């Protein structure tokens, strides 16, 4: 019995202390799954001695975590939600960090579409093509809903499957049932189980996918580590970090385009497949 | 020598009066047999004597103290052996442990009891592996290990063969030889005759006879007592 208690206390204490100089970032699965954080964050920790704990969830949930004050920094990709977050006083100092784009992926060689509008209209009118929707209130899901609305389409029916899961699950399902889905390019490129899937539509301006960083407002949540959070925000828009982001690639493909300082020439060439709307 | 006092003892369960107006004042250093037919109330009386069951009315006292007190000064053996899921040795050690006996001398006391109960060769076996007779010897040894003044035995030899019964009776005799007093309920008349010097004869919840064993067996005063001895009850 005494042994058990001692063991418990030791284990608990070893877990509590761990590291005390750290910040918590609420972010999206798309950045996490691409492997960007594993590549980028160790360099921040090396520069500043500050550890970074990333909680990667959908944009909707990430914003809720930040609203509750359970994170110090928010890094997500849905501009309207981000602006609302700041307007409502939950966040401060929003900055652009980087962007990539969304792509429509689907079974290669099944059908070809001349444009995004043509593809979506065909899906909705013929109902012959299965489309997997995230259905999880994530940034990608919100953007996908906006796409349909842009073309005055309201997808519903057996062909339109809202799975309420992450990007990976949506891709896994699409691969196994030969369905179409919308993915951010980063997750798509680093996804390991593509099967028969390939990019069907890309390059439309409307598929632009920018990421922004926001500090959680210390007036709302006095306990947030505002100075370390600001240090992180300053660092990620620095030329050094922006170059690292631009240099990050998976299988030889660049995943994100840094755009914190568009006027600076930081020597990053973004692939032409990623559209720029400056 | 312990004084047992029972005053106006009644026990009622579901409107059945299982014990009726029992009064006993008794001092005995030998063996008292509680006898009677099945259902006469022998086991119930024994349970009440140890304070395991509270009487509906009346009072039971040992040396003036209520039966619910001083359980440590008495040992109690159940008809069906209650076996702790431990080795024989640990079964014997258990009462010493829970009644906070001094640690020194425990091992010797246990060895002594193992010898008395002729279980030394089984000391480290799981008690569950014992035969019926061995198990009952173990529970008697477990009751005796705290050196009680009084030993209460509830039909300890029912379902046992004569050889096992003999071993148990030897244990009882050796306890009495050490100045202990014994109360044993039994429906085995021959055993009661062999062992006891005093008899409580119960019939239908009433104490009909309370006298020296030799007198009871020679000439019971009640009709029921005669019927019982004739094997008619």
């Amino acid at each position: 019995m005494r042994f058990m208690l001692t063991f418990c206390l030791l284990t608990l204490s070893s877990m509590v202390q761990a590291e005390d100089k750290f910040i918590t970032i609420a972010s999206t699965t798309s950045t996490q799954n691409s492997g960007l954080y594993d590549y980028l964050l160790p360099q921040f920790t090396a520069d500043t001695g500050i550890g970074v704990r990333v909680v990667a969830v959908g944009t909707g949930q990430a914003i809720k975590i930040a609203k509750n004050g359970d994170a110090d920094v928010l890094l997500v990709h849905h501009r309207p939600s981000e602006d609302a977050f700041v307007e409502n006083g939950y966040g401060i100092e929003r900055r652009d960090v980087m962007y990539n784009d969304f792509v429509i992926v689907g079974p290669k060689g099944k059908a070809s579409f001349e444009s995004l509008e043509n593809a979506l209209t065909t899906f909705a009118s013929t109902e012959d093509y299965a489309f997997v929707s995230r259905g999880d209130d994530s940034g990608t899901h919100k953007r996908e809903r906006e796409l349909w609305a842009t073309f005055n389409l309201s997808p519903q029916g057996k062909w339109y499957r809202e799975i309420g899961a992450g990007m990976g699950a949506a891709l896994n399902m699409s691969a196994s049932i030969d369905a179409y889905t919308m993915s951010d390019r980063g997750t798509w490129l680093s996804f390991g189980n593509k099967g028969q899937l390939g990019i069907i539509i890309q390059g439309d301006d409307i598929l632009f996918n920018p990421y922004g960083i926001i500090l959680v407002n210390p007036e709302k949540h006095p306990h947030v580590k505002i100075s370390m959070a600001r240090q992180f925000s300053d660092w990620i828009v620095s030329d050094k970090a922006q170059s690292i982001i631009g240099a990050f690639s998976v299988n030889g493909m660049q995943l994100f385009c840094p755009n914190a300082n568009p006027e600076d020439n930081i020597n990053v060439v973004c692939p032409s497949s990623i559209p720029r709307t400056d | 020598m312990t004084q047992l006092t029972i005053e106006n003892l009644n026990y009622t369960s579901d409107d059945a009066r299982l014990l009726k107006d029992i009064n006993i004042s008794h001092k005995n250093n030998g063996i008292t047999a509680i006898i009677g037919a099945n259902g006469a109330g022998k086991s119930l009386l024994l349970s009440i004597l140890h304070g395991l069951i509270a009487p509906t009315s009346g009072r039971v006292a040992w040396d003036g103290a209520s039966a619910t007190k001083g359980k440590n000064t008495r040992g109690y053996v159940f008809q069906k052996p209650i076996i702790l899921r431990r080795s024989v040795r640990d079964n014997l050690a258990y009462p010493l442990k829970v009644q906070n006996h001094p640690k020194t001398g425990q091992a010797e006391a246990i060895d002594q009891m193992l010898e008395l109960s002729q279980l030394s060769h089984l000391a480290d076996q799981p008690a569950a592996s014992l035969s019926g007779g061995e198990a009952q010897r173990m529970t008697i040894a477990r009751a005796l290990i705290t050196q009680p003044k009084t030993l209460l035995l509830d039909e300890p030899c029912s379902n046992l063969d004569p050889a096992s019964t003999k071993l148990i009776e030897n244990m009882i005799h050796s306890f009495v030889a050490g100045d202990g007093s014994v109360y044993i309920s039994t429906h085995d008349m021959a055993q009661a005759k062999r062992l006891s010097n005093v008899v409580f004869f119960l019939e239908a919840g009433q104490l009909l006879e309370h006298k020296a064993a030799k007198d009871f067996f020679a000439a019971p005063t009640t009709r029921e007592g005669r019927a019982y001895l004739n094997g008619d009850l």
Partner: protein
Amino acid sequence: MSILGEAIDLVLSADAELGGIVGLSLRVSLTATLIASILAIPLGAALAVWNFRFRQVLIVISTSLMALPPVVVGLMIYLLLSRAGPLGSYGILFTPMAMIIAQSVLIFPIVLALTREAILPINRDYKNLLDALNVTPVQRLKTLIWDARFAIVTALLAGFGRALAEVGAVIIVGGNIAGFTRVMTTTIALETSKGNLQLALALGIILLSIAFAINILIHWISSFGRKYQVTR
């Protein structure tokens, strides 16, 4: 079956990161099991022995808790530990501590119910003897727990197994933070979502091996316990 082959290669070439993940899994689940058992074993024994007030209520609550999906437990603990919640000021959301708390809550009703079940028949056997020996309530519980120890250890292993295999609660309260709160099950979820089925399967194999070892242990312990059981 090439995925399986690659997965086995990954297990065999386990690197430090994988080791850390497995280690954290074991540490969190073991601690949670110990915490849950310190509370649940005595209470389970008490529920088996005494008919006190709220006994039925406690039994009903604990049985219902057993049916709760881990996600709901995770959500409850999340709301409790969030900065916006009542225990927010401790700042333990997204830490291993939060995971331990969630798993303790998950394990508690299992250990409670199994302990109670293990002790009920022993209490039935022992009750008269313990009454006759006039043992104190604490001694009574200690005796029953000790003599039910094989069944109780089995209960603990069952709880440990559930904790180790659980993903829904720890991913919510731990946040699956790399190198900090990432355990085997959350890694499996993450790697599956990344389409890295080999790595996910490799971790699944490790988890399966541990579950297998636990079950062998359970089997072995119960066979040991049977020796002391009265069958008469």
